[in-house]
């Protein structure tokens, strides 16, 4: 058997050729015969009763297909966790941009005119837009108290720590909404016929989520709904749950018209109407000894979920579990809640709650350091989780992780100590100030707790007539390398050439449900199942005598061809079984939250220009321990890409809300970093194999999202000696803070050399 020849090397991307030649077919590149174009009429108020819908003059309405809530064959909900989100608003709207009416027409140019000609009268209801407004319960907009979900995590004896503390450090930290901004907007094509049922093709991450949603919406059995993923131009979580909505819309129009229907959003609609990262507010109150050791603390973690539940309980869960960071908390109480507001529901975005709570704890560590009189480095050293210790949810760290060593390496590579000294001197004068900051963090891979067990993912591997082997999974490719890595794993497992393995299109008519493509689980969880299923193929062939124990790729191909010729193609299935050492209590929210954690230390160097108050990141060192790196180019690409999004999250990307609607829903005004804004990003991997993942891999897709914000803001504080605890941090915010600080104090904390007006 070959040794790490394919796994561990950067083989060509399976779908790469199509991508570099422009042949890759995304959903808007496809048409079906007789196809109509669909569009959505959306609410213009954040909350209100729908009084009247008028279809105005000047439009040949008879040429249009019109769908409203009453046309829904099944139940008017997008099935996900809680059935509270209507597919089409029926009598009441709870957020701006909420879908109310659907239209379809053969000429896509007619749709904007038709939408303009529809006027909707509302009886407005008072709306709620912030966590504070929601939790005050002055206006109840959802359930009994506007609360989608709460969690309570308790460990040790929190109430007892305050008396023993030398210091009690408090802080409040906030993060804003962030738009995923995949370059390909959401799109779907649906077709319906009474025999086949509904088929949808689209840009999506989770075909089986859509499958489940369409069954309920269209009142169809499982075998009469088929969901096919086509080439998807970026997702990042933004196409995890939202596609069920747009698929539902396309399906309803297809059912009503009997013709295929394509719905493609333009950028303005996509930004304003679809999900974004949950805004958050975290409050820390921590008991610390004079040696800088955390005795315990209370953490309140709140996220803004928007108008309907969607995935808020799960985002809240991950944020809650990560709220303690990579530190040892002997005692902790974490109270978490997801609140309802009248904005479009927030949803999955790379990191999924962890970037929010990790930002808070990493900023808080800086403040603890200042209060205690230790450096940011020392405070972390003294509190890092050690093997054998337990996390905030009482999960024992079993792997031989050495966070101090990661920290040391990151400090060395980034030249942290000498830069910090040098900047401190150079900052005495000049029109800019430099700073360097560190963030240490962890990221759990796979679904939380019993999640993977509940998913019960299934993977098939098929032996084909031409002697190749085909992987069948519902895991989707959207740039992160799913197809490539899963084929690598199968090829390596079977000792084949990489080209001997293909992967099926993610089509629910063909592939089993291997769970959603989220939570950094694809390589670790699904990859492991691919391994098992592949071994099943080998076993069948060797048991039958068709194949010797030791063979070359050519011999395998021949054996497979012969076997299939004699017996037909066959599949080997593998189903997820929870490792016996992973226990989780859903009620107490305690136990083994994740099968594996990846660990990281990031170091950011920044310059703050004192004439324009803008921050530029000059260098970012990203050091992470991720188990085994299966494909170096893809892995590095994931880290760099995630860091770029993280830099955007920190310094550039601000959603401007007015009356619950995004005002800057265009690329001109929602600012994503360009190539000119990004620093050199230096990526380093430490490898420490993970027993649960394929070939020792852990998940890495989301990890890089957690580090940039705290490391950059820590660096800005280092540069200016001024505290910023909210992101995004724009030059205007820095300016305002400097102006107030300069007026209200002089001395070591004022930013010398800055003129306010």
């Amino acid at each position, binding site marked *: 058997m070959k040794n790490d020849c394919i796994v561990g090397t950067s083989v060509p991307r399976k779908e790469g050729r199509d991508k570099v030649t422009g042949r890759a077919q995304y959903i808007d590149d496809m048409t079906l015969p007789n196809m109509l174009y669909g569009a959505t009429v959306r609410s213009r108020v954040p909350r209100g009763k729908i009084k009247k819908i008028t279809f105005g003059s000047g439009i040949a309405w008879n040429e249009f297909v019109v769908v409203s809530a009453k046309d829904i064959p099944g139940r008017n909900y997008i099935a996900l966790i809680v059935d509270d989100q209507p597919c089409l608003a029926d009598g009441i709207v709870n957020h701006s941009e909420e879908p109310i009416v659907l239209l379809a027409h053969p000429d896509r*140019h007619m749709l904007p005119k038709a939408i303009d000609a529809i006027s909707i009268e509302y009886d407005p209801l008072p709306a709620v837009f912030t966590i504070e407004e929601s939790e005050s319960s002055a206006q109840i907009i959802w359930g009994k108290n506007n609360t989608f979900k709460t969690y309570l995590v308790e460990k040790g004896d929190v109430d007892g720590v305050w008396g023993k503390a030398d210091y009690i450090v408090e802080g409040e930290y906030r993060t804003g909404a962030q738009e995923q901004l995949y370059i390909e907007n959401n799109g779907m094509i649906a077709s319906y016929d009474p025999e086949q049922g509904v088929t949808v093709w689209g840009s999506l991450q989770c075909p089986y989520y859509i499958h489940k949603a369409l069954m309920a919406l269209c009142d169809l059995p499982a075998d009469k709904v088929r969901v096919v993923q086509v080439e998807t131009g970026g997702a990042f979580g933004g196409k995890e749950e939202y596609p069920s909505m747009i698929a539902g819309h396309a399906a309803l129009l297809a059912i009503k018209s009997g013709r295929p229907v394509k719905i493609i959003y333009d950028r303005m609609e996509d930004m304003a109407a679809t999900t974004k990262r949950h805004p958050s507010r975290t409050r820390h109150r921590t008991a610390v000894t004079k040696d800088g050791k955390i005795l315990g603390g209370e953490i309140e973690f709140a996220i803004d979920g928007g108008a309907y539940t969607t995935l808020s309980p799960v985002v809240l869960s991950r944020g809650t579990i990560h709220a303690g960071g990579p530190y040892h908390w002997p005692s902790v109480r974490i109270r978490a809640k997801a609140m309802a507001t009248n904005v479009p529901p927030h949803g999955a975005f790379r990191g999924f709650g962890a970037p929010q709570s990790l930002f808070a704890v990493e900023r808080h560590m800086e403040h603890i350091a200042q209060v205690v009189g230790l450096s940011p480095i020392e405070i972390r050293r003294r509190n890092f989780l050690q093997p054998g210790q337990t996390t905030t949810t009482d999960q024992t760290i079993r792997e031989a992780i050495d966070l101090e060593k990661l920290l040391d390496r990151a400090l060395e590579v980034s030249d942290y100590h000498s830069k910090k000294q040098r900047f401190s001197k150079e900052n005495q004068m000049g029109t800019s100030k430099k700073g360097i900051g560190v963030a240490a963090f962890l990221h759990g891979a796979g679904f939380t707790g019993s999640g993977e067990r509940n998913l019960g993912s299934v993977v098939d591997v098929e032996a084909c007539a031409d002697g190749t082997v085909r992987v069948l999974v519902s895991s989707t490719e959207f740039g992160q390398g799913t197809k490539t890595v899963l084929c690598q794993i199968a090829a390596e497992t079977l000792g084949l050439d990489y080209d001997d393995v293909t992967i099926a299109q993610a089509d629910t008519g063909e592939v089993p449900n291997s769970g959603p493509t989220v939570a950094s689980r694809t390589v670790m969880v699904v990859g492991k199942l691919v391994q098992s299923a592949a071994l099943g193929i080998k076993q069948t062939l060797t048991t039958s005598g068709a194949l010797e124990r030791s063979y070359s790729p050519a011999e395998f191909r021949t054996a497979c061809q012969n076997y299939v010729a004699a017996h037909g193609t066959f599949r080997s299935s593998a189903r997820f079984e929870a490792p016996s050492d992973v226990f989780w209590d859903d009620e107490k929210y305690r136990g083994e939250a994740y099968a594996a954690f990846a660990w990281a230390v990031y170091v950011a160097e920044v310059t703050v220009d004192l004439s324009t108050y803008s921050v530029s990141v000059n260098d970012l060192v990203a050091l992470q321990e991720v188990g085994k790196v299966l494909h170096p180019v*893809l892995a*590095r690409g994931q880290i760099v890409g995630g860091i*770029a999004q993280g830099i955007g999250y920190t310094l550039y990307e601000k959603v401007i809300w007015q009356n619950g609607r995004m005002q800057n829903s265009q*690329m001109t005004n929602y600012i994503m970093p360009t190539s000119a804004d*990004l620093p050199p990003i230096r990526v380093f991997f430490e490898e420490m194999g993970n027993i649960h993942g394929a070939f020792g891999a852990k998940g890495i897709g989301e990890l890089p999202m957690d580090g940039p914000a705290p490391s950059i803001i820590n660096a800005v504080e280092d540069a200016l000696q001024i505290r910023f605890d909210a992101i995004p941090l724009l030059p205007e915010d820095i300016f305002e803070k400097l102006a107030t600080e300069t007026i209200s104090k002089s001395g070591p904390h004022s930013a010398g050399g800055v003129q306010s007006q």
Partner: protein
Amino acid sequence: MTTNISSGGRAKCELSFTLNGEMRTVRVHPMERLLDVLRQELALTGAKEGCGEGECGSCSVLMDGALVNSCLVPILQAKSANIVTIEGLAAGEQLNCLQEAFLDFGGAQCGICTPGMILAASHLLQRNPQPSIDDIREGLSGNLCRCTGYVQIFEAVARAAHCRART
């Protein structure tokens, strides 16, 4: 306006231009966007619509040798022009240096920005065969990528420059 607005209306016109080396003629409204004419009339879907406002560059094509955002070009202005799209960049099945480099260096992840990005890089290398990293950064600054963080794209372009120098 009291009459019903149905499709049809102002006159279409016939327009010819060179596309990927071949003369093409279309019959379209003069204000159709070049992007839509390519994608719909001519079934060349390599150019993509990411933003509709000339910010993302995923609709980039070459018009008379200059990189342009095809979402901002009314088709009438492309009359008699020489248009090159991603489909015209490589000869048949053979990939060019840029395409190979993008494959080797991870320059394409989800691939949606890739056609525009490769055209922008091609445009850059035509004018500046030995670009510095800053030249590459500037040359590609009008093409947004959300997946890669640009680093591997720059490496691919630098590599392609090297490879082109040898061929």
